[in-house]
């Protein structure tokens, strides 16, 4: 009889299923970063002067900054001069339907199990595909247009809605915020822009699938989402990348703005290439995501399922400025082999009667290292603020690690902060129980881990929850224990 740990290692050694490279001719700028490169990027994108100036300011500021070393992750020094900062698929005429989309691209999505047409037809999800930095397909635009909803690529927004972009870009995450946010501000290639007008409840989930494709190209996405008074939107972000040897840097910035009584639900499934069994390759995912509940009784919910990347460094945060505003963070982070994740959230309470909920589920397997890092700050002005934090870690095998760093700062005494944390090993008795009932070890682990993550999955929109469970299942084949 093989011991369960042996089987676990076998399971953990299955290959990354989404490892493939799509060959689309790219149009890249030379490697390295200088003011000239930034001017070139801006020119290629035919940007207005103010944006170029903003990029240059960000670049100059970035030059004065050092890479952060406080996260509990370990990686070789990144040579920023070897990165190609811009790459776009060759210009194509505007597309009216998916039939006109590059068949190579469609094949890619098929392999990912994301048939666009099916999605459009069956689920009514509007899909804006960001493929290697430039959007190549946008759908449901007309329907959204009738409601005044803007959902387009950032480049298009800069052209078509410059005033809106100028008003909000960098207001939640200024270019001075951190090293990677500064870099992103200087070189961001594309991303999504969303604007929900006053009183509009966006009738469909807005969805973007990201892919990192050209070899050695760091991807710098910039997403800006504005929800006007009393509007509602649910935004889905999912991604997976082809297998490669070289580490790829990804430094996205996402900014959310919720005005009075507005609600934004932002869900992410992240499944980028995590590197191989020896820890070689994989994506470096250094992301700055932040939302501001600027208006009264507004609400921002972040839900994330993080199964990919060699290194994840990400703290989707909420600034609760409006009185009575609500921030939520639901997270599943899974690390296997040599994957490292340092993730969590910041809830900054400024307004009165603001409340926040944090539910974090960390799963470590192989030699994976999983860190929860969370800050709950309650300002003096935030009277009667409330926070509830639940932070659970599950260990699979005995070579992985889980770490928790909760930071709590309370500056008034009418507020309430609750923190619960648990760490458990996946139960031998639970596994045995499932196997005694006929489940294979792999299915048993997947079942138990999915159960462990239930509180997070139920926050995801239906179709996304199914996909997330599938991804977790796939990652567990390479993570199981």
């Amino acid at each position, binding site marked *: *009889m093989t011991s369960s740990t042996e089987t676990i290692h076998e399971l953990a050694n299955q290959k990354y299923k989404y490892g493939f490279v799509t060959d689309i001719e790219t149009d890249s700028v030379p490697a390295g970063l200088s003011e000239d490169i930034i001017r070139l990027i801006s020119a290629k994108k035919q940007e207005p002067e103010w944006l170029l100036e903003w990029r240059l300011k960000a670049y100059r500021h970035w030059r004065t900054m050092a890479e952060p070393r406080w996260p509990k992750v370990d990686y070789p020094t990144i040579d920023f001069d070897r990165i190609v900062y811009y790459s776009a698929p060759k210009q194509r005429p505007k597309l009216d339907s998916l039939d006109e989309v590059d068949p190579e691209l469609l094949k890619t999505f098929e392999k990912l199990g994301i048939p666009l047409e099916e999605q459009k037809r069956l689920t009514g999800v509007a899909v804006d595909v960001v493929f290697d930095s430039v959007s190549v397909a946008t759908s449901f635009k007309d329907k959204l247009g009738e409601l005044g909803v803007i959902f387009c690529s950032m480049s298009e927004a800069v052209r078509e809605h410059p005033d809106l972009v100028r008003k909000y870009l960098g207001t939640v995450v200024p270019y001075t915020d951190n090293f990677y946010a500064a870099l992103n501000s200087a070189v961001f290639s594309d991303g999504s822009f969303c604007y929900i007008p006053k009183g509009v409840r966006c009738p469909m989930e807005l969805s973007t699938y990201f892919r990192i494709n050209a070899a050695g190209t760091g991807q710098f996405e910039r997403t800006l989402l504005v929800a006007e008074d009393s509007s509602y939107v649910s935004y889905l972000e999912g991604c997976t990348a082809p297998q490669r040897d070289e580490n790829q840097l990804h430094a996205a910035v996402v900014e959310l703005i919720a005005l009075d009584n507005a609600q934004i639900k932002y869900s992410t499934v992240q499944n980028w290439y995590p590197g191989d069994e020896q820890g070689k390759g994989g994506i470096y995912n250094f992301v700055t995501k932040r939302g501001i509940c600027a208006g009264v009784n507004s609400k921002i919910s972040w839900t994330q399922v993080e199964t990919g990347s060699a290194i994840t460094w990400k703290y989707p945060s909420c600034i609760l400025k409006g009185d009575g505003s609500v921030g939520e963070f639901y997270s599943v982070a899974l690390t296997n082999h040599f994957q490292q994740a340092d993730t969590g959230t910041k809830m900054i309470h400024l307004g009165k009667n603001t409340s926040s909920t944090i539910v974090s589920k960390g799963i470590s397997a192989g030699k994976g290292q999983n860190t929860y890092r969370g800050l709950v700050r309650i300002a003096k002005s935030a009277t009667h603020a409330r926070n509830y934090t639940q932070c659970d870690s599950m260990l699979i095998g005995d070579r992985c690690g889980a770490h928790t760093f909760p930071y709590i700062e309370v500056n008034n005494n009418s507020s309430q902060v609750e923190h619960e944390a648990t760490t458990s090993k996946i139960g031998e008795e639970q596994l*045995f129980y499932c*196997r005694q009932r006929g489940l294979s*070890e792999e299915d048993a682990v997947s*079942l138990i881990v999915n*159960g462990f993550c*239930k509180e997070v999955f139920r926050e995801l929109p239906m179709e996304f929850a199914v996909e997330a469970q599938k991804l977790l299942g796939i990652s567990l084949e390479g993570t199981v224990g």
Partner: protein
Amino acid sequence: MLKVSNLQARVDGKMILNGLDLEVKAGEVHAIMGPNGSGKSTFANVLAGHEAFEVTGGTVEFEGKNLLEMEPEERAWAGIFLAFQYPVEIPGVGNTYFLRMALNAIRKARGQEELDSVAFMKVLREKVKLLKLRDDLLKRPLNEGFSGGEKKRNEILQMALLEPKLAILDETDSGLDIDALKIVADGVNALRDGTRSVIVVTHYQRLLDYIVPDHTHVLYKGKIVKSGGKELALELEEKGYGWIQESHAA
């Protein structure tokens, strides 16, 4: 059906089973009794393939196959079912979902078609009716927050659904009220069709009024030290284990 010869097993370096012999024929019900810590649960777990218990000697044959070489799930597929003395809780996993996964895993392994949710619910409802289980227990996470008696009844529901060839009940009667005891016994008796066998581990002869054993055994210090018919259970109830321990020691 099941032939156990000279079975020896240890846990944490400590010998628990010391040459256990037992033969169970198709259709038979065997009761195993014995003082606390004598190795009853260990025996049940070894039969089911728990890896914490290391088999150091002896053989176990199940329907002509070497059981000891099989993985726990392979034993389940072959028809072995263990109703646990302490069923574990699995947070976040719906009871009904689990039941369907288990049944389909076993059906698949046996080359039967998997049941879709409609067909499954039909089968499930039948069994639930038989066991008079409250509906809400099906919707809740597996065993989570179930009372002791509810957990035991849920074990029997699983047994009824999976229709094993050999069911091992480890103190399923402990903690059950009288009505539940009868329901559990009905569940077990419904399974009996002349080919399926049952091993009942119990401390009380009361259960054996409802599930009448063909053979009763006393397990003591990891060995079967006395076997008899149904009346042995009565005798044990009356006299305790002292007399057996003395005669065994002598």
